[in-house]
């Protein structure tokens, strides 16, 4: 099919982008890497969009470290993120995720901001930032605001980003000396969206565990986290399976996905030495 866009404009800076979005009203659509949006438009799942291309805005890409936090610009491409030394040290979970996201061509174009704003529950980055307890930084016509990751993902393809707002960056605490971050998933083919996946972050304060591909949003598995903090893997697996209610589709049933989540948790647990 041929896409049916309403219009296209390239924003020169953030203010310009916000103005363009304001003018477009509810037809306004941020375009960055296009790796989700253009595919949707090409299937006419989205038509009439007034595209505001923010991909050339300077200052919204790249990774910096400041005041004990890592700040990742929304326009940072998957490929750049995967090779970034600061990410490698402080958010290795994200670097691991890049290896699971699609293929080189898509990683060269897709951005972390786009992936988070798109909010596909089977995508890796949403679950990663949930496990990393990130903060989302938004810019809107009325100024900037921060949203805690726990409040960000609302439903399939739906986030706390309001009409006219742009996700500019995310930030997360730098890694503790003994911090563990690990992502495991099962996909039919390399690069496919996972049938199920888990992200585990272990800090002094405790374990954070999130799951992808098993619900309408990435799931923070609090029951399993408590059991892991208590060092009880069997209870954690039971709790995890109880707190997930995955969909069935043509790739796998919900029951399979639930089973896999438990398998992955045991594998992660073995890999990190089986202690809380």
């Amino acid at each position, binding site marked *: *099919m*041929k896409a049916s866009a309403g219009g296209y404009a390239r924003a020169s800076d953030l203010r310009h982008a916000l103005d363009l979005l304001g003018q477009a009203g509810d037809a306004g659509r941020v375009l960055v890497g296009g790796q989700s949006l253009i595919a949707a438009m090409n299937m006419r799942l989205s038509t009439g969009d007034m595209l505001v291309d923010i991909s050339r805005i300077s200052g919204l890409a790249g990774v910096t470290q400041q005041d004990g936090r890592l700040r990742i610009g929304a326009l940072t491409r998957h490929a750049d993120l995967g090779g970034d030394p600061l990410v490698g040290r402080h958010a290795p979970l994200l670097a691991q995720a890049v290896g699971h996201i699609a293929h080189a061509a898509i990683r060269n174009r897709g951005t972390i901001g786009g992936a988070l704003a798109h909010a596909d529950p089977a995508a890796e980055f949403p679950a990663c930032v949930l496990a990393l307890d990130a903060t989302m930084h938004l810019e809107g016509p009325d100024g900037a605001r921060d949203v805690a990751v726990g409040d960000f993902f609302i439903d399939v393809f739906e986030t706390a980003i309001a009409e006219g707002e742009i996700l500019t960056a995310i930030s997360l605490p730098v890694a503790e000396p003994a911090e563990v971050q690990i992502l495991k998933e099962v996909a039919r*083919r390399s690069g496919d969206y996972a049938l199920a996946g888990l992200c585990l972050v272990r800090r002094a304060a405790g374990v954070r565990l999130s799951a992808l591909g098993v619900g309408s949003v990435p799931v923070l598995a609090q029951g399993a986290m408590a059991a892991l903090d208590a060092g009880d893997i069997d209870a954690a697996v039971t709790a995890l399976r109880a707190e997930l209610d995955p969909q069935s589709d043509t790739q*796998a*049933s919900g029951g399979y996905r639930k089973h*896999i989540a438990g398998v992955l948790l045991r594998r992660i647990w073995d890999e990190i030495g089986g202690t809380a």
Partner: protein
Amino acid sequence: MTIPFGNPNRPNSYIGKTVPRPNAARLVEGRGRYVDDMILPRMVHVVYVRSPMAHARITGIDTAEALAVKGVLRVFTGADIAKVCTPWVAVLAHLKGLKSPPEHAIAVDRACWVGEPVAAVVATTRAAAEDGAALVDVDYDPLPVTGDMMTALDADTPVLHADMGDNLAFRRLHEEGDVDAVMASAHKVVSARFKTARHTGVTLEPRSILVDWNAPEGQLTAWHATQAPHMMQTVLAEHLGLPEGRVRVICGDVGGSYGIKVHVYPDEVATAAIAKIMGRPVKFIADRLESFTTDIHARDHEIAGRIAVAEDGEILAFDIDDWTAIGAYSVYPRTSAIEGNQVVNLCGGPYDFKDYRAQTTVVFQNKTPTCQYRAVGHPIAVAVTEGLVDMAAAELGMDPVAIRRRNMYADDCYPVTSPAKMRFEGLSHHASMDKLVALMDYDALRADQAEARKKGIHRGIGIASFIELTNPSPFMYGIGGARISAQDGCTVRMDPDGSLVALSGVTEQGQGTEAMLSQIVAEGVGVPPAQVRIITGDTQVTPYGGGTWASRGAGIGGEAALQAALALKAAILEVAAAMLQAQAGALDIRDGQVVDADTGQDRLSLAELGRIVYFRGDTLPKGLPRELVQTRHFITSEYPFAFTNGVQASYLEVDTDTGIVTLLKHWCVEDCGRIINPQLVDEQIRGGIVQGLGGALFEEIHYDAEGQLLNGSMADYLVPMAGEMPDMIIGHVETPTLESALGAKGAGEAGTAGAPAAVMNAINDALRPLGAQVTEMPFTPERILRALGRIED
């Protein structure tokens, strides 16, 4: 004239060598010319409005809003098209009892599957046509949906085509010997149920056609991505009421076919009808989404199989009950009964046994029609046969290689006729198996498997022997009344500077036909392959032929090319003999020079001979024939089909916690007779294996109970990708067919035929110690875990 193939050092020995493909540079440099690259003056685009319902009466079509869209020119309904295009009925006389109702290019009154065209919107751009298509307002009155295969013939299942009486399209029972008696007295009888998924071919280039109608000339020209230009010429002529001579089908570069592009598609015929009505060029390019709903599907089979064996492993009998559902219509003109028919013909194929019963039951349902796709029926028959053989071996405690060696036809027993009444001219099952076992180092693999098992790693080895039907005679389609040519022809011409042009009726789909033909012609005449230009895919210039299907291009089209080339060589030498005052028999052509046959000494260049013939013919003896254009045709006549054989092996690992299968390595030894280009054959085998692995592990079209297709995109219909593919080791045994001087049989489908069975047997080899078995393809992680009983709900 013959070619001493036994001597690899013979002059011009291009047959049997890997030579560069003449079209490769052009294609990799982006200079290929596909239908969508064609832009003609006054060209318009057509987009089809497709039924969103699996079965519905069309009660009204309102086109007003669509016609108001800027750029939209016309909207056509089924009734509009029916005025210029007759419907077709896809049956074949030799498939007794096969029935199917008339099918229109655009549905008239009733839509029978999701995706069936119900209206056509023509506009100045594809985008405008899509805008218009979205606004065509069709009123549907839903009708009951027939979806399930196994209940299609039940009394309370709605009958899809009332005129047909029931949902049975075709049934064939073949019986040889007394299967019931053998089963009753055999040492062991093993039975199992198998399923092969509905899948499709997923060509890189989607279906494409551009048709122009030149009214003053009364000529229809179709640029078409097709495997069979002459068949399409005949079909378009017949259904649009034109003489064949006024229909020209041109087939330029084609981006893969795999059988998908050898059928008559309603939307493509409708495009031709629209061009005729509008008197201007009309282009239709299927997009990826409509490819999934409208390209033919294949291999939706459920099979109950039984094998009877003696204590020593002798195979006594096979009993096969095959069911398949073919969608709403049998596909024109090859029909949709062939796949089931092949299952009956091919089960038990490699084995020397006596008692055989096989039945296929082919039913209608409200889904996309199924038809012939690469390796038609073979992957099903091979999976059932080889699955049962492995299960029997396990029951008897026999090694899978040993039970096959015990039962395969001896290499010196040919010719022989199988219990399915297939006639084999010459096969090499044992030599192939010996080579496979050596290539894979079978004993070392078994040791590795045992070692891994000690560590809780579950690896499996799977073997699959097979036969493959190639080089078909008219027994495949022609005798049933279809105007599908089993014969093919080639014209070879020498131009003044000694260049050769060969025009062939077989076609290039990306598989290397042109390379193969250039080698044959080069050797046949005696010039370097680069001096030969190959022309295929134009009904106005090439000899009439069948095109690409059933692995016939090299065996049939290649032999025609060889004979034409040898005839041209003889004609050239006749002229040369006169010019040199020598005996033609004492001369030869080598590397583009006429030489003394004995000494190899240069006598005359072809360019000089060409100069004399074309520009100074006055200097040649009066009456000397100077026919530097020669045409030959070839058709097989001794055997209905040239069977080939081979054996594949898969080594893989099953993660018994996740159900994921990792392919470690794959082997195939096959015998396609004379190998013309080793690299092309190897890559055909590898590509075929990949498609077979797709069927085994990934590809499955899902429908819901209402007949809605659930996974019609590349995101959720999984094709095999490079990352999951194992290294593939290919070996060959060569048993040339004696039907032709070339001796080539087909190699295009062997990989696909055997790969799914090899993988199934390997998975079951890995799972056997755990008491699990899978027989339903594709072997998804979930199916494997369910077989292992590892999933709680």
